[in-house]
């Protein structure tokens, strides 16, 4: 009971923090599930490409979830991320197609090659993401409006904008997509197919971007004053204020980053699918929230870890693969099992945390 009162000189190892504990649980469950699937169904799960496909398909979700994890750590929420991702994907495709006159004019006037459209699409993606993040962040942090309502409005706004730009699905030109969909071949992780031909494992550029963002966010949260402020604000905003933290600015940055990441995610999504569509990234915000929660981020704020979120996305995707592989191909089975797993995770988390609260001598 009295583990807080031991003499300070005894340099024993610290008991792990809540954040680390939840992360450990997530990683263990992911590995257990994946290895279990390997043994039960073998086949696809034994091939490394299965894992890479998961990453390729979910790169955008990983990026969104990073932003959402930050926002949730500060005790806020952002449900506009899916809408912004879809909007950005649509705008990018339009730019690549040369359908947005402004950019065409600029490219023409500057005499740039057609490939430069990619650059403008990326620039516009970042801009849209930042704009959403900045406006929402300002309203939430400085005017203190409920984040749920603001970002709900943001979500409708973004989805509406897509239809204004184009009602019909758009496809990016193939020659530009060939550049964007360059795959990285990892031959030593490849597998030999039935005909005895080696097929190398393939990874998309988007995965690299997602991994870089995960690492950057990891260091931001761990090593930067701003990152630690996210935790402080989420833990107790009043205390954070008394500790000399600029609570409003911290909240603003959290939403700004979330917006920026939705922008990047939109571009990555477009790179993966090459299409703009009003129904793109449907429910991505919900999947991102679920991933963050599975990864050990608490909706109540103050606790969370981006490494956990990364594994949260993979866990969620593994659940879906397992359900499909086990023969339940109807889409609702994925939803049902995802829901059940989410419930289980949250139950497990609260049980573990409750047990620790009782065992500890703090409140």
């Amino acid at each position, binding site marked *: 009971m009295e583990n807080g009162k031991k003499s300070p000189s005894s340099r024993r190892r610290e008991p792990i923090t809540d954040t680390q504990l939840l992360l450990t649980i997530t990683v263990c469950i992911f590995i257990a599930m994946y290895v279990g699937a390997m043994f039960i169904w073998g086949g696809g799960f034994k091939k490394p490409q299965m894992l890479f496909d998961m990453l390729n398909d979910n790169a955008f979700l990983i990026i969104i979830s990073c932003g959402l994890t930050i926002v949730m750590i500060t005790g806020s929420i952002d449900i506009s991320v899916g809408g912004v991702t879809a909007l950005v994907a649509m705008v990018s495709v339009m730019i690549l197609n040369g359908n947005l006159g402004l950019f065409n004019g600029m490219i023409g006037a500057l005499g740039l090659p057609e490939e430069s459209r990619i650059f403008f699409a990326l620039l516009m993606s970042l801009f849209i993401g930042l704009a959403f993040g900045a406006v929402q962040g300002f309203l939430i942090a400085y005017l203190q409006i409920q984040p749920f309502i603001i970002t709900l409005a943001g979500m409708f706004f973004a989805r509406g904008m897509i239809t204004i730009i184009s009602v019909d699905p758009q496809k990016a030109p193939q020659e530009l997509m060939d550049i964007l969909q360059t795959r990285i071949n990892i031959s030593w992780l490849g597998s030999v197919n039935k005909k005895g031909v080696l097929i190398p494992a393939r990874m998309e550029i988007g995965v690299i971007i997602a991994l870089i963002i995960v690492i950057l966010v990891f260091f931001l949260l761990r090593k930067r004053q701003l990152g630690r402020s996210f935790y402080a604000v989420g833990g107790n905003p009043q205390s954070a204020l008394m*500790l000399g933290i600029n609570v409003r600015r911290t909240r603003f940055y959290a939403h700004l980053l979330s917006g920026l990441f939705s922008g990047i995610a939109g571009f990555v999504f477009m790179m993966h699918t090459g299409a703009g569509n009003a129904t793109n990234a449907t429910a991505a915000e919900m999947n991102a929230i679920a991933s963050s929660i599975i990864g050990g981020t608490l909706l109540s704020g103050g606790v969370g870890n981006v490494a956990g979120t990364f594994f949260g996305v993979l866990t969620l995707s593994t659940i879906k693969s397992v359900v499909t592989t086990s023969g339940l191909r109807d889409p609702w089975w994925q939803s049902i099992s995802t829901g059940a797993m989410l419930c289980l995770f949250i139950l497990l988390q609260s049980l573990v945390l409750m047990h620790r609260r009782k065992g500890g001598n703090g409140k």
Partner: protein
Amino acid sequence: MQEDIVLTMRGICKYFPGVTALNRVDFTLRRGEIHALMGENGAGKSTLIKVLTGVYPMDAGEIRVDGIENPIVIHSPQEAAGFGISTVYQEITLCPNLTVAENMFIGRSPKKSVNWKSMEKRAGEILENLGIPARPKQQLGRCSIAVQQMVAIARAVDTDCKVLILDEPTSSLDDREVEMLFGLMRELKARGVGIIFVTHFLEQVYAVSDRITVLRNGELVGEYEVEKLPQVALVEKMIGKDLEDLSSIQKSEVQAASETGDLYEAKGLSSSEAEAFDFHIAKGEVNGFTGLLGSGRSESVRAIFGADPVTGGAIRVNGKAVKITKPLDAMKNGIGYLPEDRKRDGIIADLSVRDNIILALQVIKGMRHPLSRAQAEAFADEYIKALSIKTASPDTPIRSLSGGNQQKVILARWLLTHPQYLILDEPTRGIDVGTKTEIQKLVLKLSEEGMGITFISSEIEEMLRTCSRLIVMRDRHIAGELTGEELSQEQVMRTIAGGGE
């Protein structure tokens, strides 16, 4: 400025609309002393602290700090910290989800990156130096409240701190933890920090303080050295001697506890807020809990009613063992409770006077047996008349009534349930003199009809007038029981102060 004085406040005035919170108050703090700031609730202690830390702007007066030529003006706690004035508040203002080391350093460094190694090393040095039993890497929320408080102090004194304000730091600590905290305070004192210690625990003041400044009704009563001010004298100064002039206290004609046996009896009753105590009340008895604010008197009666989670104790009502762990249990056993905080625990502001009156009766009857509209109207009209509640109509929302009339509505709510035992916690606070006398008369009348009543009031003479037995609380324990001849102003004060040293 004298050599060893670190802080002087002169002629501090602070007015709120209609209230003079501070009237020309002086305060002096010397290097390396622990200076207790004492006074009853509303005496102006917290206002003075808030002026000093820049939470409130002062309306007149000047503040000087050692080492600064001119009087200073403080606009915010951050600015106060810049002048070397740090505050540790009663409620912990740290983040429980961060580590101990982070809590000591976050928000202080202008650097953008965090160097965990050097931060933890430095934190470890400070903690060890001050003898605080916490480890830098520990999650703060997993330390005891006392250690969290000490970490807050460590953070405060690490910034070149001359004046440390401890605002009720001990109110949620147990004896051993208080002793730990005192050790730290003495350590800081030896290092030359001037400490302002705000508390309402008299014994703690005498355990650590060098000097005492007493405030009363926003005015300075005086500054005293601890050795020269015995506890009884301190209580007299806090409460105000003028009360002694009220020699015209009419000894009330309350009956002594009848021999019919106890109406309510509790052995070792304790709750999350109150320490274990024994208590009993007989039919027709009026007794009271007294003691300084924070001595545990409200917490004790809340435990009787089950208003805070009850943690132990054996209870008998009319000789039968019963379980009372929540208010509904108490109500079903015929106990009513008029809470101290009328706005929070009493009225439902947007409901009408009538709905507020019938609330408790309806709860006892259960939601499946609703009172008819006609019944509700009859009850409401009866009690509005009986207690002469001044309201435009029974349909008026209770929020638009005056404090005294709101209080009567809550009283009516309980009388309607015909309780055999009624607890009144500060029923006369903040209401006009006329209503006060009415309520006192009503208390006596109800007790004649056989109701047991426990009465709490901060005005001792009011208690003396109505109660036949007084339970005196000090530092969350029953310090004594006074009956009959012992019921005098002086004896009450002696017991509050502790044995009359």
